């Protein structure tokens, strides 16, 4: 075979692909060559020299990690010369490594310790002090914070350069660099700034020694005392595989669990450090019920009886349609299914929804349209096969950090190109991608312009309406035409007043592009897809089928009941509007916080206040919970078991690390106990029992094949029928309302890179990474307003006004301002109104 080479390692023959290194060949044989700087994801640099092996006829020892295998090579790993060489290298590395293993947090899991034990010299020949004489005063100390979450001890560093290479080659940023030369090398963020990156935690995980230590783990516990539980990250739709390191009921850190198809051993800081929110001591500890206007602690029995009794009486008074359930997209499949079942079967209402952060949630019809795209979706690992990636309506680095790394990998391989369109420059725009910034909510006009450009029609009108130069769109159309393209449609497309038209246009654009073009919908939220498929929306039943007569009868048979409530039912916006008018009897919030996040604080507050009875089930006491009649403590993800369907369409199960802390309880158990008090006869002892029931329903519905999987073990095969896409001839561009003289700026809002709602803010290091709410504004706009960074400004709209600090961000489109939604104290939604599409604000300097 021409593409394979045969070589001999330790007198054993091995055949590897051409271009693979000696180390790969040795690993194939199961021969362990010690390494420090080698990492399969990074380009070999052969810096540590720990992997030296002897090759016959080579004058010197060769580093096996960097030298490609050649036909007929004879390699000796354990010859005397090779062992002597490696021992010498290890002695050099150790000659300046401080002997502070007792105080080093890497002690016990340190690769240098392991290698010294296995290969190293037994004694030391150095008598000189073991600290680096480094020019910078700061570095002479033992350790100091390098950035908000990471501490650096330069004395311990062995210069494998894994950290800088991970940031440079994988994350594609220049946030961390090595400075000075030789023995005096130091690590630092560029331009003397502290080191901060969305992926900074990976440097800690991959540091072979204790040079880089996470702030949240420093001086906390010894690693050998910790138990490891495999789990899945809940903080975005990527579904990264993680390992929870915990002792007793305390979660100490989150490491990657290296799933080659999903995360490739990488985690974002949101997942790694933000996930520690579960360990916060500000959690709700006991169930609370409102007595004499105050929330007081009580027992579970009492609280559940109180809730069930009230719901019974409300059902009698308002009928079942007067009760609404609002879940959230982080609930597991089992919890969603149970919630759907209690709403539809036990309470008897279709008023169930899980989206509470968006004004324009997709209708049932649009949802079914979107589900069709899942049939042909592409796993992350195949992104590199596409010539072009067209990202519309999302900042993937915020919503899907790890998916972005796959995109970056596709770009940096040189085969793919990226096109990103959003109402601001995305974080991703820092990389060699083509970027377009249209008006906020200009998605429809932009898509229409792109469609017309591909069709060869005039685009001037629609391009003008979208706020993009028509030549730029023409250029994109030319570049994209005929090429195999992956279209990534962000939530701004379907969470949009013109969501349905947008998707029609997107489908048409996809058809116009080259053969093999595919639309992927990266849903934002760890189990958005699971919530859709397991019936957490009014129009879709568990199993993923539409809520119609025929499908209801299938479910009825499974649930052993005569009938389910007729089609209809309200989504979150409708429920809240109805409740604010006093038309709703009871509202059940399951991990949701409409007062804090629904984009109209006035309506949400009124709704919660005006409903006769409201109960919240949540981990931390939220703004909504403060207004509720009963608050039940919900256990966060390390304390629950269940399954998630990531936005990639991958089914992943996770196990609980330990029992719920304090008096909190798993979600499914709370729902089940509540349902039993409301007359539900069934009982489950574990989520796997619920799953087996769900599997049989899914089997009957036949939409998603939970048994079959293509690859990666859990990549679900889906089968949804295509919906009718409307005729595009009648589509006309629709100019957006323009800002008035009084309110000249457009307000945009969204999540920040490091945060998931307000949950992650409870994690220890998060206030350092992402401190406080800020108003982000384009420097050009700010200059016109004579505004400096850090000034206190007042933002006012027709609804209200807020006071916060300003920050500059050149990525913001001129004429718009951006407020991150993660800070409850900011109350960003008090500026918004559900009645208007866009919010205009004015900025005053205080």
């Amino acid at each position, binding site marked *: 075979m021409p593409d394979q080479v045969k070589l001999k390692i330790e007198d054993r023959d091995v055949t590897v692909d051409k271009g693979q290194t000696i180390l790969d060949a040795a690993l194939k044989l199961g021969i362990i060559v010690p390494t420090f700087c080698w990492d399969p994801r990074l380009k070999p*640099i052969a810096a540590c020299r720990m992997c030296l092996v002897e090759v016959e006829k080579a004058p010197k020892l060769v580093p096996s990690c*960097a030298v490609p295998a050649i036909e007929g090579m004879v390699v000796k790993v354990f010859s005397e010369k090779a062992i002597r060489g490696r021992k010498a290298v290890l002695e050099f590395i150790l*000659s300046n490594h401080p002997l502070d293993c007792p105080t080093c947090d890497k002690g016990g899991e340190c690769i240098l310790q392991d290698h010294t034990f296995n290969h190293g010299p037994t004694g030391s020949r150095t008598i000189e002090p073991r600290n680096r004489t480094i020019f910078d005063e700061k570095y002479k100390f033992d350790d100091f914070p390098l950035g908000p979450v990471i501490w650096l001890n330069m004395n311990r560093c*062995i210069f494998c350069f894994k950290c800088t290479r991970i940031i440079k080659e994988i994350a594609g940023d220049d946030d961390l660099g090595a400075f000075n030369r030789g023995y005096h090398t130091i690590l630092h963020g560029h331009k003397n700034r502290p080191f901060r990156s969305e992926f900074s935690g990976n440097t800690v995980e991959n540091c072979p020694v204790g040079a880089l230590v996470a702030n949240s783990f420093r001086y906390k516990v010894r690693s050998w005392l910790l138990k490891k539980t495999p789990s899945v990250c809940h903080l975005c739709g990527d579904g990264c595989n993680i390992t929870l390191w915990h002792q007793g009921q305390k979660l100490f850190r989150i490491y990657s669990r290296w799933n080659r198809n999903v995360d490739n051993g990488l985690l974002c800081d949101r997942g790694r450090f933000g996930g520690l929110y579960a360990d916060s001591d500000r959690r709700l500890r006991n169930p609370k019920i409102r007595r004499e206007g105050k929330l007081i602690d009580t027992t579970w029995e009492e609280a559940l009886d109180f809730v069930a009794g009230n719901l019974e009486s409300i059902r009698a008074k308002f009928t079942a349609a007067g009760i609404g359930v609002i879940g959230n997209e982080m609930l597991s499949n089992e919890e969603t299914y149970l919630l759907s079942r209690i709403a539809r079967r036990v309470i008897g209402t279709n008023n169930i929804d899980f989206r509470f952060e968006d004004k324009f949630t997709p209708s049932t019809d649009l949802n079914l349209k979107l589900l069709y795209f899942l049939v042909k979706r592409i796993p992350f690992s195949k992104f590199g096969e596409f010539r072009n990636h067209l990202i519309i309506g999302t900042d993937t680095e915020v919503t899907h950090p790890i998916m972005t790394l796959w995109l970056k990998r596709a770009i940096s391989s040189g085969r793919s190109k990226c096109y990103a369109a959003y109402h601001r420059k995305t974080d991703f725009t820092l990389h060699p991608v083509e970027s377009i910034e249209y008006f906020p909510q200009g998605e429809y006009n932009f898509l229409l312009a792109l469609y017309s450009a591909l069709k060869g029609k005039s685009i001037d009108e629609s391009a003008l309406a979208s706020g993009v130069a028509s030549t730029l769109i023409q250029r994109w159309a030319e570049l994209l035409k005929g090429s195999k393209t992956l279209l990534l449609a962000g939530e701004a497309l379907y969470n949009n007043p013109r969501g349905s038209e947008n998707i029609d246009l997107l489908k048409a654009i996809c058809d116009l592009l080259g053969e093999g073009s595919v639309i992927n919908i990266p849903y934002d939220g760890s189990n958005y897809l699971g919530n859709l498929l397991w019936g957490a929306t009014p129009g879709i039943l568990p199993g993923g089928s539409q809520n119609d007569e025929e499908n209801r009868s299938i479910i009825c048979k499974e649930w052993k009941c005569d009938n389910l409530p007729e089609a209809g039912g309200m989504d979150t916006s409708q429920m809240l509007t109805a409740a604010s008018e006093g038309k709703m009897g009871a509202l059940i919030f399951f991990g949701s916080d409409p007062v804090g996040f629904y984009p109209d604080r006035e309506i949400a507050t009124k709704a919660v206040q005006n409903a006769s009875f409201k109960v919240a089930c949540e981990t931390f006491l939220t703004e909504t919970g403060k207004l509720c009649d009963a608050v039940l403590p919900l256990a966060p993800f390390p304390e629950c078991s269940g399954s998630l369907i990531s936005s990639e369409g991958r089914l992943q199960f996770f196990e609980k690390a330990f029992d719920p802390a304090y008096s909190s309880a798993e979600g499914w158990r709370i729902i089940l106990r509540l349902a039993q008090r409301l007359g539900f006869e069934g009982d489950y002892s574990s989520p796997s029992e619920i799953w087996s029931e769900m599997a049989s329903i899914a089997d009957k519905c036949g939409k998603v094949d939970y048994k079959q999987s293509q690859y990666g073990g859990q990549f679900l095969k889906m089968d949804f029928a295509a919906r009718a896409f409307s005729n595009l001839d009648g589509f006309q561009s629709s100019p957006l309302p323009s800002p008035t003289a009084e309110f000249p700026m457009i307000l945009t809002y969204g999540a920040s890179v490091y945060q998931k709602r307000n949950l992650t803010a409870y994690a220890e290091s998060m206030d350092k990474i992402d401190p406080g709410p800020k108003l982000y504004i384009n420097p050009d706009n700010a200059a016109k307003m004579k505004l400096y960074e850090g000034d206190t400004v007042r933002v006012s709209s027709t609804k209200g006004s807020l006071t916060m600090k300003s920050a500059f961000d050149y990525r913001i489109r001129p004429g718009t301002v951006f407020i991150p939604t993660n800070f409850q104290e900011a109350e960003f939604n008090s500026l918004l109104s559900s009645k208007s599409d866009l919010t205009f604000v004015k900025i005053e300097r205080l």
Partner: protein
Amino acid sequence: MTNKILFKYIDHPDQDKIATYIENGGYLALRKALKEFKPEELVELIKKSGLRGRGGAGFPTGLKWSFLPKNMNKPIYLIINADESEPGTFKDRQLMEYNPHQLLEGTIIAAYAIKCHLVFIYIRGEFAYCAQQISRAIQEASSHGFVGKNILGSGFDLDIHIYRGGGAYICGEETSLMESIEGRRALSRQKPPFPAIEGLWACPTIINNVETISNIPHIINNGAEWFASIGMAKSVGTKIYCLSGHVKRPGNYELPMGVSLRELIYEYGGGIIDDYALKAVIPGGSSVPILRADEIDVKMDFESLAEKGSMLGSAGVIVMHDGTCMVAALQKLVKFYEHESCGKCSPCREGTNWMNKILKRMLAGEGRPEDVDLLYDVASNIIGNTVCPLGDAAAMPVMSFIRKFRDEFDNICGGGKPYGTISFPFR
């Protein structure tokens, strides 16, 4: 002294101006090469002349050029290594300052021979005047049509860029030099792949020393046989010997290969200053093994010095008289390497530092008797285990110093006083 080649017009005023250079027969070789030779023939000619690299390793230049992959759709780059920072070597500086056009002419011919259209001249950061001279020479040459599009009507295009280094010794190493041009920290790369296959921006790259390239016009003018007839059998041509240290007349001497070291020191250098006795000579720049006074009857060419266990290197001859303390001298050398190590690979980064610490301790009178063996062992552990030759360059003098002046090291470690007046040719 009569048959100087490179330094023939070195004393000629205005030799750095193109008019004078052309008057003295300059750019004839370029015309000849472009008219009479095909690129492949030029490579053959250089191969036949036996020209060897003057940067230190002495690799045959023609052979290096012929390693370039044929029929590749990637561009080929030529880099002129003018990052001359070896202690004791100062020949390229004079070549660039006084005769930049000679280098330029050689560069254009070499680029033509290897079909390269973009040349980088990597000049050491400290050589500000050299960079000025070269850039002026390029301007002059391009105004005469020797550089740029369609050179002399031959259809051959060439651009020459000057890249000034940041002043690091490691940038003289070819892979670090390429990293530096690419805009990264100058950390040397693992070889293979060799630069001729995958070099600058992963394209085939040839890197030649200033002196090597300066020889090329003369080979074209006078023929390969003429060049091969000068010097020894395998080391041909002339060599610029940089004589420094405790000699009466230090400086650059262009002599045929194979001149005797004794002749070089006593005849051309005028003997040792203040008529001290000779103690030791480093024959080829700081990174080669040292020679004792009784070993100087050696011919200065690649083979003869290799026989003596040393190397010609870049022919930077450093002479040390009888009053020199070898431990102090070695510490100065090692300190230089510790400071200049790039820090990429562990043996070099930690080893040079460790050796420096041991030597400093010895000089402070805190040496232990076992330190001499420890020092030797550390040096022998560095050799062969590093990415680039800098580690070897640091370890080789240490080993040779200890081997040849063991008694001094033992004396100082046994509590004795340092020998001599602790003076060293370079500070």
